[in-house]
């Protein structure tokens, strides 16, 4: 198999573009789900909030204003084909240069603080990104970009349950998390749940599910059924848009699983706000 060369500069250009597009254009599936929620929402005040969210998306795309002032931590998942050679630079450097450029050229907020428990000095360019790299078959590079806001990321939760506690533990944990988060993560939410693996595997899975299309279901029937059950349970909580009360607390819930240790049932929850900004590209 010949090795395909991809210039590091191409990675940089792509990340810079994804950063600007993700922060200004609400994905169609997300906007569609918010529009659909307007017809089912029971609270008039919640409907008013949904209208403001839809108007915001329109203003952001027509006036090139970021959808939200929190343009996030730059989370990048890379699927790197094993037949690819990145030429002219190191992959992580190329990605961070793309973040630097995208956040400068797009007039995005730089929200990353170095020395987290002491000086908390702003790095001034939103680097370093949070980069996950997976080696996959093939000769392409697939880039997933998510400007992840602090309000929702700060509501992330992890717990390990007794192995026999099963599905009920997951539903209770997700509901409790959403209930206690209230308006902080900016509902209506998209909720990512990672079940199994180890602590870090569970949270990485939870985060990665947030790249899925709203309305899509896991190919495994049992997992898909759990997604439906979680969505219904969360929307019965009454939290509603911005937690003012209502029937639209989540737009969707995604679950990913991984085999786990005989002693464990790891469950991780990673929450995304209604401004569920993601963008992908294949090189």
């Amino acid at each position, binding site marked *: 198999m010949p090795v395909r060369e991809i210039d590091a500069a191409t990675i940089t250009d792509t990340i810079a573009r994804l950063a600007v597009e993700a922060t200004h254009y609400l994905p169609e599936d997300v906007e569609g789900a918010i529009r659909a929620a307007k017809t089912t929402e029971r*609270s008039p005040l919640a409907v008013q*909030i949904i209208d403001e969210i839809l108007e915001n998306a329109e203003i952001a795309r027509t006036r090139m204003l970021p959808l939200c002032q929190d343009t996030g931590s730059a989370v990048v998942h890379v699927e790197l084909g094993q037949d690819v050679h990145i030429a002219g630079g190191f992959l992580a450097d190329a990605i961070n240069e793309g973040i630097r450029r995208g956040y400068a050229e797009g*007039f995005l907020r730089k929200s990353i603080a170095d020395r987290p428990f002491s000086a908390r000095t702003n790095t001034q360019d939103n680097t370093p990104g949070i980069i996950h790299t997976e080696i996959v078959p093939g000769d392409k590079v697939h880039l997933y970009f998510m400007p992840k806001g602090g309000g929702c990321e700060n509501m992330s939760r992890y717990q390990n349950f007794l192995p026999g506690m099963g599905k009920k533990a997951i539903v209770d944990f997700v509901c409790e998390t959403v*209930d*206690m988060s209230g308006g902080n993560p*900016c509902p209506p939410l998209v909720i990512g749940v990672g079940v199994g693996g180890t602590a870090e595997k569970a949270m990485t899975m939870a985060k990665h599910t947030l790249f899925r299309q709203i309305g899509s279901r896991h190919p495994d029937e049992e997992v898909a059924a759990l997604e439906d059950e979680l969505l219904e349970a969360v929307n019965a*909580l*009454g939290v509603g848009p911005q937690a003012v*009360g*209502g029937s639209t607390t989540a737009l969707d819930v995604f679950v990913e699983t991984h085999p786990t240790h005989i002693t464990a049932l790891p469950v991780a929850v990673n929450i995304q706000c209604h401004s569920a900004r993601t963008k992908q590209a294949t090189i």
Partner: protein
Amino acid sequence: MSSIALTTPLTDEVIDGLKPGDHVTFSGVIYTARDAAHKRLIELVKRGDELPVDLRGQVIYYVGPTPPRPGAVIGSAGPTTAMRLDPYTEPMLELGVKGVIGKGGRGPAVRAAFAKNHAVYCIAVGGTGALLNRHIKKAEVVAFEDLGTEAIRRLEVEGFPAIVVNDCRGGDLLEEGKRQYRTSERPIPAVQSLGG
């Protein structure tokens, strides 16, 4: 949905008339401050130093905007999570602040502080920084310029939309709303906060 038009600074009579769930609009001057600015303001008070802004009757908006494009007044400018400012809120109300705009709920002690100090907590819709930008007509940094996005800015706003959450009588929209629309059998958790 009809809105109550408010003009800043807020008077006691106007605050009396507001209740949880009211949709309101702010016009006039409001001041921005987030974590770092609050910390500094409270340190100044502790030292007995003069504050850079007279806060009596004023409205504070918890926001850290994106940088403006050339020629623009301000960038995207939606509210940040209010709970992080809970430790600073009562001292700010004691300095005369009458209204606060953020997102999400407040702790029980802070709710009580709004009632005690005859003030209101409102939310603007989190994640609508582009829409809220259109209601900000003028912005100037008035203190702590070195804090960048977290500096204190004086904003002139027109028809800036918000919703009353905590009124001056101890009411809480988020608690009432959750109870009203809850169809779940699950008990409402005693602790309504994940912090952060």
